[in-house]
């Protein structure tokens, strides 16, 4: 082909070029953009940096334990100091929350109420026990709201304090294996009910011993109240040692079954105050003046039960009795869980002068007036979970600790 034949001098030429003008990579049609806007989809404003993948890879692999190292995640915010405020909880703990699988981070624990809530009952007087009342300590409040671990820490601190106090002062630690005469339980409860009948209050719906005796469906005092399916009751004297221990331990926190031998002297004293019920041998502290109950005699007690919470969100407890049917079945805990719940400072005070006694909580141990009870059924409770590694279906390992402090003697020693 000769070039002369292709000569196009003086003539217009058609030039074909491959492709066309490249649109911007993020450009979309206005119609599509408007649609995305309507449904709430944000059109990407731009691509990330060129080293996006390398940077991401480096951050993922850095650190001693790379994929579990949540502490390095906030480093990302260092590149965006202006935007860092948009993620207010850019902490290691917050990043650790996000690292969890969605299935493993359900709402229940996230929706927990603050550990300390305003006292619902007008009978609760925070000033009655300022040393123990968490609600009366505003300095602890922000810390507790920051993370549930703070509540757990508070619970652990409370337990440690109870243990230390029990070792230092004259304290009475009731162990589950304490001997008890279960056969005498209903008799004593009935006797006391006859001697000191109390007017029922709205907060005291739990039946008395006589009511239970009249109701054949109600579990008897000899029976563990939180047993799932009560079997045939062995005759007295034929109970196994663990069963007797269980009965003894539960009888200490059951309103109708406070008949442990070591409680008898105290009960005689308590009878003069005519309490609604006495669950645990309260120690008389005649010199203790708690809050508004000036001049009165008061009882201080700390119950520290240990509870577990299984994957099914069912709480089990050891160390207190429970007559609720659904709680009677103790789950086989198969996971480690900490159950931060509210602490219930029960600062009800007996008053010998007014002869007033506050009612115990519904369906649980009838806290004597002037008690401090930490239990999972109260409005305020701190609990820590024991970690039983038993397979599902096995008997759960339960640990119950109850400590009783004689603050009056403690103060006397001080």
């Amino acid at each position, binding site marked *: 082909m000769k070039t002369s034949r292709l000569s196009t001098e003086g003539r217009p030429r058609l030039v074909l070029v491959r492709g066309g003008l490249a649109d911007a990579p993020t450009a979309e049609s206005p119609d599509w953009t408007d649609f995305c806007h309507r449904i709430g989809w*944000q059109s990407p404003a731009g691509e990330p940096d060129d080293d*996006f*993948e390398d940077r991401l890879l480096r951050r993922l692999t850095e650190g*001693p334990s790379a994929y579990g190292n949540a502490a390095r995640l906030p480093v*990302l915010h260092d590149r965006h100091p202006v935007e860092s405020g948009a993620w207010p*909880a850019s902490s290691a703990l917050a990043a650790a929350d996000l690292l969890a699988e969605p299935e493993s981070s359900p709402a229940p624990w996230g929706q927990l109420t603050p550990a300390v809530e305003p006292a619902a009952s007008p009978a609760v007087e925070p000033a009655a026990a300022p040393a123990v009342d968490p609600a009366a300590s505003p300095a602890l409040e922000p810390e507790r709201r920051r993370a549930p671990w703070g509540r757990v820490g508070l619970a652990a601190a409370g337990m440690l304090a109870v243990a230390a106090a029990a070792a230092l002062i004259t304290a009475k630690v009731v162990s589950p294996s304490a001997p008890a005469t279960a056969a005498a339980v209903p008799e004593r409860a009935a006797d006391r009910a006859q001697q000191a009948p109390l007017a029922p209050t709205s907060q005291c719906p739990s039946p008395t011993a006589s009511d239970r005796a009249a109701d054949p469906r109600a579990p008897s005092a000899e029976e563990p109240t939180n047993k799932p399916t009560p079997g045939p009751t062995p005759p007295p004297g034929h109970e196994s040692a663990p069963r007797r221990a269980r009965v003894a331990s539960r009888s200490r926190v059951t309103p109708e079954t406070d008949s442990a031998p070591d409680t008898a002297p105290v009960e005689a004293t308590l009878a003069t105050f005519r309490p609604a019920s006495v669950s645990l041998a309260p120690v008389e502290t005649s010199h203790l003046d708690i809050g508004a109950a000036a001049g009165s005699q008061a009882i201080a007690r700390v119950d520290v039960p240990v509870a577990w919470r299984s994957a099914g969100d069912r709480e089990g407890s050891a160390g207190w009795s429970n007559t609720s049917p659904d709680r009677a079945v103790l789950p086989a805990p198969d996971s480690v869980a900490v159950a931060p719940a509210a602490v219930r400072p029960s600062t009800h005070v007996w008053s010998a002068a007014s002869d007033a006694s506050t009612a115990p909580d519904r369906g649980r141990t009838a806290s004597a007036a002037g008690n401090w009870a930490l239990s999972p059924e109260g409005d305020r409770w701190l609990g820590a979970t024991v970690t039983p590694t038993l397979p599902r279906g096995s008997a759960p390992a339960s640990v119950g600790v109850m400590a009783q402090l004689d603050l009056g003697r403690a103060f006397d020693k001080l």
Partner: protein
Amino acid sequence: MTDLHPQLAAHLQRHARTLFRIASGFGRRRDGEDIVQTLYARWWRRMREEPGWTLPETYSELFVCVRRVVIDVAAKEKRDRLRNATAGGDLAPEPECPETSLHAFERLQWIVSRLPASLAEVLTASLSAGRRDDATVARDLGITLSAFTTRLFRARRAAEELASYYELLPLDQATLMAELRYGGKTRAQVAHELGMLPDEVAERSRQALDFLEKNRRAVS
């Protein structure tokens, strides 16, 4: 320094930008990198715990995974805001643009969750990949390009209608209309599920349609 799993590293090279784009689409551009990193950290752990588990590859799967993380982040932010408000502290600064707020994300969630599955799949894949890659998305979904285009058109119509429900009607009425329109159920079934009488369902849907029609005329 720990070496990343080879499959995960390759996946990151292929899809990290797509994941970032999806996070940006959810209104999380400011912390999109954090979300992608969190996602890969989860996947890394899951690969170690379940060696047979395979990484998500399709656009729809990537969309769902990013949405899961964004839900967690949004829930956490909401909790933090509530906690700060309860504590009496300053509230966390709201994003500048209202559309980047949680409302937009919740609206998208509501719409996508009420679309029929086939339409939702096409729409989420198209949103993830962008409108410029229809052929790839169609191949990814295993359908022809024409089928993808047709289904995407229907998905857009349905999503726009659901968006109008969400914007104009009370939430319960919008949910009722969405169930009647795209739930694939009869009125009797919807009434049974919502605990209403069939006549009541019919009356409420008629009221909603009247309101929507009135609004449409006002706009036009």
